[in-house]
């Protein structure tokens, strides 16, 4: 990507991300009173990650069949509370195995 295009994007992503983290630690040190706002902020990560994962995860391997295998393994392990690393590696292995299996059947 051209640097003249890239650098403004870099400045915006890094700047916005830093300000979000920095301002509450330095400037606003008061508690948020509104219960609605507090729960809204607490729910945001789950809402964002849910929307980013589905349906994109089904297109992440270029083949719906292998992606479904990866999702099934990831959901099963994540549901049981396994670590980030375990779930991510197991999902990749499931996709690799499914790809190998698809090569065997015509």
């Amino acid at each position, binding site marked *: *990507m051209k640097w003249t295009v*890239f650098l403004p*994007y*870099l400045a*915006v*992503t*890094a700047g*916005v*991300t*830093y300000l*979000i*983290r*920095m*301002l*509450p*630690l*330095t400037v606003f*040190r008061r508690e948020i009173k509104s*219960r*609605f706002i*507090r*729960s*809204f*902020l*607490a*729910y*945001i*990560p*789950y*809402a*964002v*990650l*849910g*929307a*980013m*994962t*589905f*349906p994109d*995860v089904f297109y992440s*391997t*270029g083949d719906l069949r292998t*992606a479904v295998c*990866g*999702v099934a393994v*990831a959901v099963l*392990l*994540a*549901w049981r509370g*396994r670590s*980030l*690393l375990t*779930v*991510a*590696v197991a*999902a*990749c292995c499931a*996709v*690799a195995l499914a*790809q*190998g299996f698809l090569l065997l059947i015509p």
Partner: protein
Amino acid sequence: MRAAFRQGIRHGIPIGLGYLSVSFAFGMKAVGDGLTVLQAVLISMTNLTSAGQIAALPLMAGGASLAEMALTQLTINLRYALMSLSLSRKLDGSMGTLQRLIFSFANTDEIFAVASSQPGKVGKHYLYGLMLTPWIGWSLGTFLGGAAGTLLPVFVRTALGIAIYGMFLAIILPPARENRPVRFVVLVAVALSLCFRYIPGLNSVSSGFVIIICGVLAAAAGAWRFPAEEDAA
């Protein structure tokens, strides 16, 4: 070297190892989307956030406006504001304004989780140690993924494409299982996201705005329906 600094380093090592593998997938994806290895590493060194960086890639590749990029990052990373607010009460007297300006750069989900679980207050030596290994792991993994990703056989690269989503699932599913409001929020967000992908008309909205709309609506629905549960989430 202070004992607190060494303890921070020790606590940061497992986070750094986890980041190494996930950022490997990010580096690979970034180079696949047309960035150079150096550009991918610069993003990781200055942003230090998984979901925000992943969402930024299609926006950069698609030539989105800077306003859309800023709004997308604001929504995805808004959770850090809450973590910073919460951590602010846990810092001891050694954390003056300068130290807060430095540490806030590294307040990621995992670093926040470890720092808040420490007994009592935490100080600058511990926090500087804690942020170091994850930052190195995140930057190094991006470099390795960007530089070596294209050398890997196609079937390995394809399989690694799902790694980041595996990590997202590992973050959202355990609390969704334990906690009904979180389950509700995740289901609403996923349902909205499916609508924006498959319903004609809605599917022409660009990826950044889809994340903003789904995230804000689902979290607002959760806050409206389950306003008292925020401590459990």
